[in-house]
């Protein structure tokens, strides 16, 4: 794992708070993800991970706080901020009446991808969707649907990528490719947030880790930084550290 995030963040979150009535889903959360960095977002069920991710994508409006994506404020310049971003949820949301290829053409037009005709074929090949390009989502397996959602997310080469449980539904080969894709996108300069309960995956891919519980930040940093701040955790793996910090 590497340390010290660069100074120009791809994603920057300051004092993010989200309330549902009296319920505090996320409270005063601040962090940043630099280009080329993969931040692992982990926390127990109900910790506020999905609320955080949905806020970062502009799907829900935060109660207070600032979010910036690719240098654009999500509230002030939502269109520019969203154009720099891709969100790949754990449950793929697709239009049941558009084919695989049509999903990509539609996404290209919405994100104003000029060279979509050149980008689509290699993407279909990379995600093994070539033979299914005229299939409707209802004709695809769970894994294929997930791959289509990933293809739509990668098509416009976003500066910030947000994955929520990206390996759900993928076969072993698909998982390996997915991990390689995440690493490659980060190496190409994208800021990546990866939320998962698979702590081995987080440990393997992420340069830094953000642990939240009850909507609050518990720990952030590279694994060795977290351990340095808490000497009693020395010699333990992420799973044990996670359990120790969240009281699991």
């Amino acid at each position: 794992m590497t340390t010290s995030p660069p100074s120009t963040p791809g994603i920057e979150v300051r004092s993010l708070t989200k309330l549902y009535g009296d319920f505090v889903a996320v409270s005063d959360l601040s962090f940043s993800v630099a280009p080329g960095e993969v931040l692992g977002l982990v926390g127990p069920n109900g910790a506020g991970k999905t609320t955080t991710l949905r806020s970062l994508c502009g799907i829900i409006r935060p109660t207070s706080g600032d979010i910036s994506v690719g240098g654009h404020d999500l509230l002030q310049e939502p269109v520019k901020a969203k154009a720099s971003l891709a969100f790949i949820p754990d449950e793929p949301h697709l239009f049941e009446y558009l084919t695989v290829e049509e999903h990509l053409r539609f996404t290209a037009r919405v994100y104003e991808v000029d060279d979509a005709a050149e980008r689509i074929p290699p993407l279909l090949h990379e995600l093994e969707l070539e033979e299914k390009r005229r299939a409707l989502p209802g004709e695809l397996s769970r894994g294929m649907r997930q791959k289509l959602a990933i293809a739509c997310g990668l098509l416009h080469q976003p500066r910030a990528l947000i994955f929520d449980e990206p390996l759900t539904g993928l076969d072993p080969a698909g998982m390996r490719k997915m991990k390689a894709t995440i690493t490659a996108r980060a190496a190409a300069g994208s800021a990546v947030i990866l939320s998962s309960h698979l702590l081995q995956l987080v440990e393997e891919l992420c340069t830094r880790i953000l642990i939240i519980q009850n909507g609050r930040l518990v720990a952030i940093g590279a694994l060795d930084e977290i351990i340095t701040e808490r000497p009693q955790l020395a010699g333990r793996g992420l799973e044990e550290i996670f359990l120790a910090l969240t009281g699991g």
Partner: protein
Amino acid sequence: MIGPFLWLTWRGFRNRTIRQLQRVRQPRYAVAMLAGLIYFWWIFFRPDRPRPMANAIPGGESAELLLTVFSLGLALMVASFWLLGSDKPPLAFTQAEVQLLFPAPITRRQLVELKLFQAQLAIILSTVVWVVLLGRRDEGVLQSGIALWILFTTMHLHRVGASLVRTSTSGHGVAGAKYNRWTLIVLGAVIAAVLWSVLAAYPSLRAAANGGDFVGALKDLLHRPAIAAVLFPFRLVLAPILTHSSMEWLRAILPALLILLLHVPWVLRTDAAFEEAAAEAAAKRAERMEAIRSRRGRVRAPRASGTRTWLPLAPHGRPANAIVWKNIVAIARTVPPSTAGMVVAGVVVALIAMFMIAPNVHDTTTVAAILMLFGAGFLVVAGPLWIRNDLRLDMLRLELLRAYPLTGTSIVRAELVASTVVLTLLQYVLVIASYFALWRGGPMELTPSERTAALIVVILVAPAVNAANLLVQNAAALLFPAWVRLGLSRPGGVEAMGQAIVTTFGSMLVLAFLLLVPAVLGLIFGLILLAHVGYWGLVPGAALGAGLVFGEIWFITRWLGSAFEKQEPGFGKEDE
């Protein structure tokens, strides 16, 4: 095995009902429930409601005619099962049933029995509703109920059987046809009998249409031996509903029950045939693959097949236009094939009937033009409820839409444009076709120039009225998502009906408010010009009215756009 199925069906019904009653604690559902109950009372229990079968059913020739007409209607309905099929696959199992019951130690036959058993809940409810609607009294209630239950159950079983045979034959080719050969032979015989009788009677029908006794000719056709034989089972099933005395009912009920009982083994056998045909077709496919593999050493990758794009999306342009494109594609792919088939069949039947009945071409085109104008007018009212390729379809994908780099206003406007375009184009086709059909004049005393002016008025006004109407529907979906039917599913229950009534009433009020000022101003302007330049003066009036409506829509969509940006996904969860 019936015990667990009974328990499952009962608990499902009970839990759904309790859930619906619990929701009534929320004011919006309480109002909807009240509206639904008032509607039910008005339809079923108001003192002055019509009771078509409260008194004795007519006997003699009238009863015979009634039975013949109903048999024909039932036969046409059954024909639609075979010709048009169903929107749903036969015996559609829910996801939970597939996951929990398919791996359980239950035979396929028992699963089919479960589905047939589950359908009884809806059938019994329909029976109760129809018994109340028909309004028979005393012992007639029970007799009527049993007769209707036999009719509905037989129809349901026939529909399932027909769907299984269709799916098996179209999906499994020769194997499907082989396993359903007896059904197909009977079906072929019925089709041949009907065609032969119609062809034999055609000269007399044609002659009757040109000034003769058409009803008499039609009666003769229905009483031809082949047609009478085809209609005989339908008469047997319907006969108990139209009996006059308990004795007569007792005599009629046994043959009807026999027809029902014959359907049960037929459906079970058809399902078994479906399974065997599927297995045989799969085995043959595997053999073919093996043969190719041994010949070539490898299997050629299958070519991409499936749904093709019929409407191209330009690679460049305004991003929001992609949503318009997506929604127009959606309308073609979400219309159930049976609906499209029914529309086509209806048009074909109407055309054939018109050419048979109308004595000359001029009258035929006039009738066609009037029908098309009526259709275009009907679409103004019903179109926005049928054409739903807008936020009413997309609100369920709100999470996805919200993540796109588009403003809320541009999304709302694109959604509105999509359904407006489809609806308006349909009306344009009908209106322009009727314009040309009436080229040589029609029932109204209008000159060609005046008819052209009227056409342009319609062309100007239609998109504005449609857009306003659809704006109201979309605003309701966005602002009150729990009150509007979203997606393609249809919610059930009294409060769902009440919600529909309240929403429809509210929508009509808002629409009237939206259209009032533009309509009055456009009409005044048009009438002033009419006095000076004739019918063409209405055109600027229509343009003014349409322009004002579009102006209103422009401002309202801006406001709705900001509402869209504030709307959070998950609105429906508490309602599910």
